[in-house]
């Protein structure tokens, strides 16, 4: 062997040996030797991130064994998935409830049930409507960070006097529609100036319209997107395209600013009522302080009084991805977040209701949202509902969004749009069962 060859082989050997020795150090996120570092990835930015950072700091101060390193990242679901697949996930991942089932089906999460039960964090500790969706296939895959319930927000200055209080506001959808006809304003050429209500604003929960009419999306075995209740809901959506004109609504909505800005259509008075979450009060406080508003449960169909008090729920959740380096320490942190005083502080900071069964009077009395008790009641309502617990939830949501848009733009009739969505989802569900569930 010549000298250059020997040198080359030696250099290669040094590089390989270095990689073997230092490899773990390079991918390790352990920053301190005196404490276990728990890596926590969370979706929030801005004020919401700041509130969670306060919790993290409080946890780090509360003991001397674990240090949580908080990282606010975009696309937390995708990044967690890729990091988990790569074998180097964070110890705690703050994802959305909507991700939970596909992650769980893919065996990407740690079952928290044994640790949660041992810590006394069982079903009785939480509001049932928030705890139940975290359990799936016999496991407990997450615990809440901050939850929400949704209600109809109303501008009393834009509705007739007889409807301008929570008590006198129409209780039924038909009553709401009559009010909308009364107060909506158009120019001579048909352009909208103010809409009493728009099902497409903000358009975040198009999957929920069916359940608001008593429908469901999944019966435990099969998807039921084109059930008669769901078709009825989309028929109602269509009446708004007919009432205002599909093109006029599109044009009107294209001028809406984002919800986190003073150009928000509700704050600007372009819509008199709007479906939104408990957090809306926070944005009103920041961008239009002093704006008159109140919240009521979304009206129910006249012939379905049994649905009174319904609300679609959502929640941000804390999970421990499979392969996390320090699952026990990660759970210590999650347990800390579940403490009543910590959870109430975080939920107040986010302008949300608490997911816990016990809520202090102090929480209600000091909350920035005047209607926080309503949102709490809605979360506890037996008529409140969550998105269906199914691994193809992202596809279901996307497909119903498309069906909603097809109906809103009058491209398809409601039964056709939902029939098409059902057919497509039936195929995808069969494939999912074959490729994921029965694998």
């Amino acid at each position: 062997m010549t000298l250059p060859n020997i040198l080359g082989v030696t250099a290669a050997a040094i590089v390989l040996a270095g990689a073997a020795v230092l490899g773990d150090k390079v991918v390790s996120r352990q920053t301190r030797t005196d404490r276990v570092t728990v890596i926590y990835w969370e979706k929030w930015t801005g004020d919401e991130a700041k509130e969670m950072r306060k919790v993290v700091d409080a946890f780090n101060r509360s003991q001397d064994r674990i240090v949580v390193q908080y990282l606010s990242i975009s696309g937390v679901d995708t990044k967690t998935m890729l990091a988990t697949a790569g074998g180097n996930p964070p110890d705690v991942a703050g994802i959305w409830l909507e991700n939970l089932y596909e992650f769980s089906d893919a065996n990407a999460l740690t079952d928290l049930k044994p640790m949660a039960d041992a810590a006394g964090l069982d079903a009785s500790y939480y509001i049932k409507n928030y705890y139940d969706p975290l359990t799936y296939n016999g496991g407990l895959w997450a615990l809440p960070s901050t939850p929400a319930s949704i209600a109809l927000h109303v501008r009393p200055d834009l509705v007739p006097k007889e409807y301008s209080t929570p008590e006198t506001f129409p209780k039924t959808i038909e009553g709401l529609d009559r009010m909308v006809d009364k107060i909506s304003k158009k120019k001579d050429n048909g352009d909208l100036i103010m809409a009493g209500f728009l099902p497409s604003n903000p358009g975040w929960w198009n999957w929920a319209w069916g359940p608001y009419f008593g429908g469901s999306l999944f019966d435990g075995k099969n998807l039921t997107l084109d059930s008669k209740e769901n078709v009825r809901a989309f028929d109602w959506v269509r009446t708004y395209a007919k009432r205002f004109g599909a093109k006029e609504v599109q044009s009107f909505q294209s001028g809406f600013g984002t919800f986190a800005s003073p150009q928000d259509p509700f704050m600007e008075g372009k819509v008199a009522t709007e479906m939104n979450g408990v957090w809306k009060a926070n944005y009103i406080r920041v961008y239009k302080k002093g704006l008159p508003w109140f919240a009521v449960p979304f009206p129910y169909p006249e012939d379905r009084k049994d649905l009174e008090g319904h609300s679609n729920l959502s929640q941000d959740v804390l999970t421990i991805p499979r392969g996390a380096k320090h699952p026990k320490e990660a759970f210590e942190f999650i347990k800390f977040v579940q403490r009543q005083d910590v959870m109430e502080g975080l939920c107040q900071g986010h302008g949300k209701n608490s997911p816990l069964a016990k809520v202090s009077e102090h929480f209600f009395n000091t909350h920035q949202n005047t209607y926080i008790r309503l949102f709490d009641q809605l979360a506890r309502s037996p008529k409140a509902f969550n998105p269906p617990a199914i691994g193809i939830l992202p596809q279901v949501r996307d497909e119903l969004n498309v069906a909603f848009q097809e109906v809103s733009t009058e491209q398809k009739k409601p039964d056709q749009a939902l029939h098409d969505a059902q057919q497509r989802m039936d195929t995808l569900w069969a494939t999912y069962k074959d490729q994921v569930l029965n694998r």
Partner: protein
Amino acid sequence: MNKRDARIGILFASPWILGFLIFLTYPLIASLVYSLTNFSILRPPKYIGFQNYRELFHDQVFYTSLSNTLLYVAGAVPLSTIVAIGLAMLLNTKVKGMSIYRTMFFLPTLVPMVALGTLFLWVFNGDYGLLNAAFHKVNVTPPNWLGDPTWAKWTLILISIWGCGQAMVIYLAGLQDVPVSLYEAADLDGAKAWAKTKSVTIPMISPVILFNVIMGIIGAMQIFAVPYVMFPGGAPARSTYFYTSYLYDNAFQYQRMGYASAMGWVLFAITITLTTIALKLSDKHVHYEAN
């Protein structure tokens, strides 16, 4: 070249070779293998033969996204070509301060795609957008560029002009290579401007046009960032849902990496086919100096 020189040459080229093998060849082969598997990223891939490909050809959204993409290619490539050639011809004239103009027309191509998408959300906004404000000034009722399913795709085609600066520079280089003697001969024959363009300029830069058209087709087939920012989920009603958006959603939203890999290879096959057609059609229209 002796062995020693070859070894040294390979050694110097090895960073690139390694990068090519690790970051291009391996993913390419891996994606071909994954396209034959049920692979959700979080679980090991399982061989399923051509099932992903079979499913693809029965998938309505696949056809929707493909037809949206082909329509975009059919609109954006010719439009960008015409605008880029036109600009290059203007920038090839002898005007004072030409280098400033050339820089100005090239600068837009440096804007990141996401920033571009956000910018055009404001320009094309149906209510308070700059463009519609201009239409209203001249009493013309403008369309709802972003909200109307019929117009949304055309909006993206119009936006594609923004990025034609790169092609423009290549056309400009091509135009400067056209021998002046040909224009002088045309002048002697009494040819007017259009005749000179048609009979001298276009034939002489035809190889450049072919190159840019092929690159344009390949780029347009992969349109992703701008519609992803401007039209989340391909709204309204999937009218702006493009092939790569569907591919991305399958890979990263629905965790169907095997299916997404199959989509990638079908896209490759379609792009190769379109490129071959463009090359075949060019046989009679492209003139090379060597010929």
